């Protein structure tokens, strides 16, 4: 009776020890490569690329359809430039947004239309 009662307890403690032993080396192995990676890549990052940033969420356009966000940003940039002048830095926010959100073909088409004088909206 005592033998059968004690054997499950012995098995349980053995299992726990086995699990601890198995997980410890795995954790140690995972830590090592993570420490190595940044040393290789950081010089590239610092020299070349800016931080990852994109057009923020605009509560005026909360839904799926973002066509107006693209078009409004494009109009706002050129209107801002016309009113404030080309060297006014805060206008660049609109340029950043429309570059992020509008397809390049749309931007090129609108640029051509503006140069031809056929752009449909008033700037």
């Amino acid at each position: 009776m005592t033998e059968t009662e004690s054997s499950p307890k012995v098995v349980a403690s053995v299992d726990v020890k086995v699990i601890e032993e198995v997980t410890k080396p795995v954790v140690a192995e995972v830590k090592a490569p993570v420490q190595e990676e940044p040393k290789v890549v950081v010089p590239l990052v610092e020299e070349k690329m800016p931080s990852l940033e994109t057009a923020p969420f605009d509560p005026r356009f909360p839904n799926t359809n973002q066509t107006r966000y693209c078009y409004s940003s494009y109009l706002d940039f050129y209107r801002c430039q016309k009113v404030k002048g080309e060297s006014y830095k805060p206008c660049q926010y609109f340029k950043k947004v429309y570059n992020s959100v509008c397809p390049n073909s749309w931007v090129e088409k609108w640029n051509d239309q503006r140069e031809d004088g056929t752009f449909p909206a008033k700037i």
Partner: protein
Amino acid sequence: MMTWKTLMSPDSASPLMEQLTFLHDHALMILLMITVLVGYLMASLFVNKFNYRYLLEGQTIEMIWTILPAVILIFIALPSLRLLYLLDEVNNPLVTVKTIGHQWYWSYEYTDFANIEFDSYMIPSNEMEDYHFRLLDVDNRIAVPYNSQIRMIVTAADVLHSWTIPTLGVKIDATPGRLNQISFLLNRTGIFFGQCSEICGANHSFMPIVMESISPECFISWIYNMSEI
């Protein structure tokens, strides 16, 4: 990715897809229990000897089998509504990727930092290597950093297409003249496949989507390499 063996949802790569899978499994379990109950009742009708000529009413049981389905429906509706609102949550994306559907390929643009544009054609079966998946692999994959919110803006250049990746729970129509936005987050690294989901002509089945999820450092190196090309 979907194979011929995929009967239920594919393994998810995004927390929202995980929640969709859980809701599906929860609702399906309730449906299975109802089906088994009804099947058992109908089968037992064939073999029982119950007979009562003067049956007129049974108010208690009528109450039970009216209230109980309402309770079951509440159990299905509450998680469903929770997920419905969760899918519409506002979030601030880290990267914006634009995709334009053409006949019959996708083109991708990354214009947040450098002006990167490329086309993504399916690898034809006669040019396939041993390691390629037939009708699913492409020449240029979209790379995306994991654990970061990605905003995808989808449109089309000619006819309707639809951009989808089942493991992310994402499917959005590509409509000419309209920009559709969808936002997702990848939980893990890997390569995820999808196929065009709106009939768009002869090669509608042959314009797949392949997304590669990589670490943010690798993503920055990838952007740097692509902008030099």
